[in-house]
Each structure stands twice: as structure tokens, then as C-alpha cells.
């Protein structure tokens, strides 16, 4: 029996699946090398032991390489660089020299070589190149594993499949784990768009990452329940919780079967009112999932991934390839690409200008980011727009500009687009001249000027997450005020209504692509306010479609009017809960 209590930890679900199982905790620090002296006659033997470990690690890398097809050039390049690091003179020759000169064991000698390498890397000013030391550590860990005669992952030898818990799981570990008797993995580091996450999804290996201190919280043999979609991890569940989850899991299966029925039906109400249900995604790897869930387009493609990931910087060709794949796969449905939505502090390593001082920005949410940053780094922006325009012939493209707060930003962007178009024309490159251009409505000034903006753009995308944050002046990550973040705040609902009405007055469609769009209580209200398109995470699509197909538009419209009169979120939620238990009991209960 465990004396430690059960608890629930929230991480980032990166690869779906609900798993109950025992964990194996892998701690890299168990490999810390000791020091011992060797008699001279054993030195050559020790050198050979080290060479064997390096050779073994190389064989492993080469065999993992076969797991990747040629189209995964980034992954292949990572493995190739690991092979070169492994055989580097600073690792091999240096370590052998230390063994021979000091009559010491290989582990200790390798540790000395590593600290010399680290000292060199510490002096590199460029943070991106400096960060490659993490690759050196990954490689050294493999050599250590073989020197100790134990693979950290060989702990996983029982017949019973287990959940692996580790500090950091590399893309290579993920492939390796996939071959073992593994149910899922939990990691302290990583995020939705890491290479590890992408590989886990493509191998259908459920995973939750971003779980701080999890290797300290769990011990090998502990039981966990994890949900790779929601990111919830129940540590040492009680019998009751396990039963609940098993029931939930069964219930989910039954529901998923039922939901599958909806995925290819039209998204319309009983009385024939049609809306577009589309998907929010970050990487093209999600496209199969998007189609599987019956999305009628991409309502929000977050284009940041190409800028953050891969050892490669996004040149025009790389971006073009991404956008072409998106558009061609989704055609004839529209694909809405949001242009770069970050501040310069996140992209330091690409830019000649140093933005590291932006760490000190007192109000990053109000700083140089999104469209402001793009207009400031106009060359970077032009490259993105150029690749978008070139890709536009492969499907239906909509370009969405984030954080627009004044008309001037829109005019400047249009001027850049005109220049690129005339360049492309001169080069004889093909593009869609009337490509749709829209703005994110997420700053109160854009709401107030919605009637003016509506005359200048082809569509509106309401970004509710930021709109709520900026209009209520609430930082959701601040624990003291987070509870005041309220999608049903009457001011928020009125702003949405105002934006929809202003858009419709000019005959342009209005979509919502924040979290509200995929919330089963919010979605009906948004539809009742006249929103034309809801864009959400792909797995939520069938839920919303089922709700829609059981609704009548006149009722949704009435419902929205009633919710607009509620004084706060609590009242609105209570009202909606009672309304739905009356009209659509199944839709709400099973959410």
C-alpha cells in the first residue's frame, strides 16, 4: 500500500489515448559516473570497453535511422548529427587519451571530456548554437548506458506493459520506446509542437508532457491514469477513480462510435441553418486527424511551428511546402493561415537584431508582437506572405492577420502584398490575385472599429482568448485574477455580437477560433449570435456537430438573446445548463 495520497496533475496532452498502468521512472542521474584507478595492464582493456560502447551506440543510431523515411529530412539530419557527435574526436580521442594518461575508468574519462566540451559551448554567444549541447548530452547518455552495461530503458523488461516516466524523452527515445512493451509516456519537458510529440502521435503512442517534477512525484511501480488528449494525469489513483476512469473510457468508446456517425454529415441545424465547422491546427501532421473528424476547412493554422522547429530556419521554400500541403489536402475547403503571432524574443536566433532585451518587457502582451512584430521585421513578413501567395493556387487560401488594432496596420500589410504580387507577376510565378484577407478581432479597438474594418477585409476571425484577456484586463496565467477570466462576461458577448453584426452589414463572414468555439456551452450561444464559422481542436468537432444537428436555429437565436441579458458568467452558465438539460440532455451530459 502506498502511503502517499492520490492526486491529479495537469500536463500537456500531446498524443491521445486513455491509459491505466504501472510506471517505470527513468532517472538519468542514476548514470552519474564514479572514479576509479586501473592498473596499467588493464588500460587497453578499458579503452576497448569504451570503444565498444561507442560502436554499440553508433549501431543503435544507424538502426533507428531506418525508422524514418526520406521525407522526414529533419529527423534524419538530427540522427546524422548525433552519429557525427558520437564519433567526434572531442568525445572519442579525448576520452581515450584521458583513460591512458590518468589510468582511470572510461566513465570518469568521458565525464571529463564532456565538461571540456561544455566549457567550449558555454562560450558560444549564439543561444541557438549553444543549445546544441543538449544533443551532446543525449549522445553521451547512450554511451553511458552501454558502459554501465544497462540501457536505462532496459528497466522495462517485465511482461506487463508499462508507462514510462522520464525527465526528457528525445525523438529517438520515442521510437525506441515504441518497440518496447510500452503503453504511454510521461515527460517533464516538451510541448505540443516538439518533435517528440509529433513522433508520438504518428506512432499512436499516448503521451503527456510538460509535467514538472513528475519523476520526483512518481516511483517505479506506482500506478497512474493518463489522458493523452486532455493532459490529465491521476497519480496513484484510488479504486474509485480507477473504476470511474474505466467507466469513462468505456463510455468514451461507445460515444466515439456514435460520434463517428456525425463526422461526415452536413453541419446544419434541424431547420436547415448551415454553419462551417473547421479545425485549429499547428502542424501538417495533424491533417489526417482533421479530415477524420469531418472538418470543413482549417479555421486557424498557427504558422509558428516552422519558425521554432527543425534545425532549419524557414526559408521561402520550406514555408511554401507547408502551405501547399495544407491547401492541397484541404481543397476545396478553405485554409485560414494566421501570420506569425509571436514577439521577437522567441525568434532571437534568426534575426540579425538582438531581441534578448525583450525578456525584460514589462508588458509583453502589449508589446512588439504579432502583426506589429511582422511589420517591424518586414523582410521576415514578406517571406511568409510571398510563400503564402505562391501556395494560393493549390487550394482556397485565407490570410489572417493577428492582433490588428488600427487600420494603418492593415494598409501597410496590403501595400506589402501589392509589392509581392507585382514581383511575382514579373517573375511569371502563379498566384491567386484575389486572395482572401482577414483580421483577427481580438483587441477592443478592432471591435469598436469593426464597421470600418469590415469594408476593408474579406472576413473576420474573432480570437476569443485574447479578446477576453484584453477587454477584461485579465492575465489568465495570474492565479489571483484567473477566475475573473469569463467568456460569458456580458461585455465579451456584446463585443462578439457587435463584430458579427458589423461583418454581416458588409456581407463578410465572421468566424470564432478561440476556445469558446469548441466549448459545448459557448458554441450554441455563438451560433445564436450569428457566427458563421466555428474553428476548434479537431477532436471536439463531432461533439459540436452533434449538438448543432439537434438544434433549431430560431431557438439558438432566442437563447443567445437571453444569455446576453445575464449579469455574469455564473448566471449564464446556470441558465444554459438548465436550458440544455431540458432540450439537449445527451449533448451536454456526455461532453
Amino acid at each position, binding site marked *: 500500500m502506498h502511503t502517499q495520497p492520490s492526486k491529479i496533475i495537469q500536463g500537456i496532452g500531446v498524443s491521445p489515448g486513455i491509459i491505466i498502468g504501472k510506471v517505470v521512472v527513468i532517472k538519468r542521474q542514476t548514470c552519474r559516473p564514479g572514479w576509479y584507478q586501473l592498473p596499467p595492464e588493464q588500460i587497453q582493456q578499458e579503452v576497448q570497453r569504451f570503444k565498444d560502447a561507442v560502436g554499440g551506440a553508433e549501431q543503435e543510431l544507424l538502426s533507428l535511422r531506418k525508422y524514418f523515411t526520406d521525407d522526414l529530412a529533419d529527423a534524419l539530419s*538530427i540522427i546524422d548529427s548525433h552519429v557525427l557527435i558520437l564519433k567526434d*574526436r572531442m568525445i572519442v580521442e579525448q576520452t581515450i587519451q584521458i583513460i591512458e594518461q590518468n589510468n582511470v575508468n572510461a566513465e570518469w574519462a568521458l565525464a571529463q571530456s564532456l565538461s571540456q566540451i561544455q566549457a567550449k559551448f558555454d562560450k558560444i554567444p549564439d543561444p*541557438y*548554437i549553444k543549445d*546544441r549541447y543538449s544533443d551532446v548530452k543525449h549522445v553521451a547518455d547512450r554511451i553511458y548506458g552501454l558502459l554501465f552495461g544497462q540501457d536505462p530503458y532496459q528497466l522495462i523488461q517485465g511482461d506487463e506493459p508499462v508507462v514510462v516516466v522520464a525527465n526528457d524523452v528525445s525523438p529517438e527515445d520515442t521510437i525506441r520506446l515504441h518497440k518496447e512493451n510500452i503503453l504511454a509516456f510521461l515527460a517533464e519537458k516538451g510541448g505540443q509542437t516538439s518533435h517528440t510529440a509529433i513522433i508520438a502521435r504518428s506512432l499512436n503512442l499516448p503521451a503527456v508532457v510538460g509535467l514538472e517534477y513528475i519523476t520526483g512525484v512518481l516511483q517505479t511501480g506506482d500506478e497512474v491514469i493518463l489522458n493523452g488528449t486532455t493532459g490529465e494525469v491521476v497519480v496513484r489513483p484510488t479504486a474509485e477513480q480507477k473504476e470511474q476512469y474505466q467507466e469513462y473510457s468505456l463510455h468514451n468508446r461507445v460515444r466515439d462510435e456514435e460520434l463517428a456517425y456525425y463526422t461526415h454529415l452536413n453541419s446544419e441545424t434541424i431547420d436547415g441553418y448551415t454553419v462551417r465547422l473547421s479545425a485549429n491546427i499547428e502542424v501538417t501532421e495533424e491533417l489526417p486527424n482533421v479530415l477524420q473528424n469531418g472538418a470543413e476547412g482549417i479555421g486557424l493554422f498557427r504558422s509558428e511551428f516552422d519558425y521554432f522547429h527543425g534545425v*532549419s530556419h524557414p526559408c*521561402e521554400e*520550406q514555408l511554401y511546402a507547408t502551405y501547399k500541403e495544407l491547401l492541397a489536402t484541404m481543397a476545396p475547403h478553405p485554409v485560414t493561415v494566421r501570420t506569425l503571432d509571436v514577439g521577437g524574443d522567441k525568434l532571437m*536566433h534568426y534575426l540579425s537584431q538582438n531581441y534578448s532585451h525583450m525578456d525584460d518587457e514589462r508588458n509583453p502582451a502589449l508589446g512588439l508582437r504579432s502583426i506589429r512584430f511582422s511589420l517591424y521585421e518586414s523582410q521576415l513578413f514578406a517571406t511568409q506572405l510571398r510563400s503564402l501567395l505562391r501556395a494560393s493556387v493549390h487550394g482556397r487560401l485565407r490570410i489572417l492577420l493577428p492582433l490588428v488594432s488600427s487600420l494603418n496596420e492593415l494598409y501597410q500589410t496590403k501595400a506589402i502584398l501589392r509589392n509581392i504580387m507585382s514581383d511575382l507577376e514579373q517573375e511569371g510565378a502563379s498566384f491567386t490575385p484575389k486572395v482572401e484577407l482577414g483580421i483577427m478581432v481580438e483587441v477592443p479597438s478592432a471591435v469598436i472599429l469593426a464597421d470600418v474594418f469590415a469594408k476593408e477585409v474579406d472576413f473576420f476571425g474573432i480570437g476569443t482568448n485574447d479578446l477576453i484577456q484584453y477587454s477584461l484586463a485579465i492575465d489568465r496565467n495570474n492565479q489571483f485574477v484567473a477566475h475573473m477570466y469569463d467568456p460569458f462576461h456580458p461585455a465579451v458577448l456584446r463585443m462578439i455580437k457587435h463584430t458579427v453584426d458589423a461583418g454581416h452589414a458588409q456581407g463578410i463572414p465572421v468566424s470564432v477560433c478561440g476556445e469558446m468555439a469548441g466549448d459545448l456551452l459557448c458554441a450554441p450561444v455563438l451560433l445564436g449570435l450569428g457566427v458563421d464559422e466555428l474553428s476548434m481542436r479537431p477532436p471536439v468537432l463531432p461533439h459540436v456537430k452533434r449538438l448543432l444537428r439537434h438544434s433549431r436555429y430560431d431557438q439558438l437565436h432566442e437563447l443567445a438573446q437571453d444569455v446576453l441579458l445575464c449579469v455574469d458568467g455564473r448566471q449564464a452558465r446556470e441558465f444554459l445548463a438548465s436550458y440544455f438539460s431540458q432540450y439537449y440532455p445527451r449533448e451536454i451530459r456526455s461532453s
Partner: protein
Amino acid sequence: METHRTILVANQQGVHGRVATMLAKIAVAYDGEVLLQYKNEIVSCCSILDVLSLGLTQGSEIKVTAHGEKAEETLDKISQILTSATDPQPDN
């Protein structure tokens, strides 16, 4: 034979993982020796760690020297990688 060239690093991201990998691959495959000199430091291009630790960013001026057969050809390959502003695709 020995030949050398002075090259300005054009890659926007500098000589990072992928570029260093390609440089080291060429040097390892080459029968002779390829050296990179940046400021006062001279390193062998065969060592990916040495190449990375030079910390070459866009605009760094380096001297590349090749000793051995087909030195010119090797320098051509290396300077092509270093002078393209964007990442060339690796040939796998």
C-alpha cells in the same frame, strides 16, 4: 595540393546543427584535411563539435583550407553550403 578561401557565413541562423552536420559529413568523406579558421582559432572541419563551438553566426568571416586531392572541389562544396542564405537540403 593546398588551397584556401575566405568565406562570409550567409546562413541566417549561423552554423547550427544541420549546417555543421553537412560540413562535417563532407570533411569526413574527404581523403585530405579541411581546416576552418575563425579569428585566431583553427579547427578541423571533421569535428562537428569543433565546428559548432566556433559559434559562427551570419556575417562571420572564416578562412577554409583544404589539403589533398580535389581540394578545389571540396572547397566549392563547403562554400556553397556556407554562402547560401537558406538551408540547402541535405542529400540523403
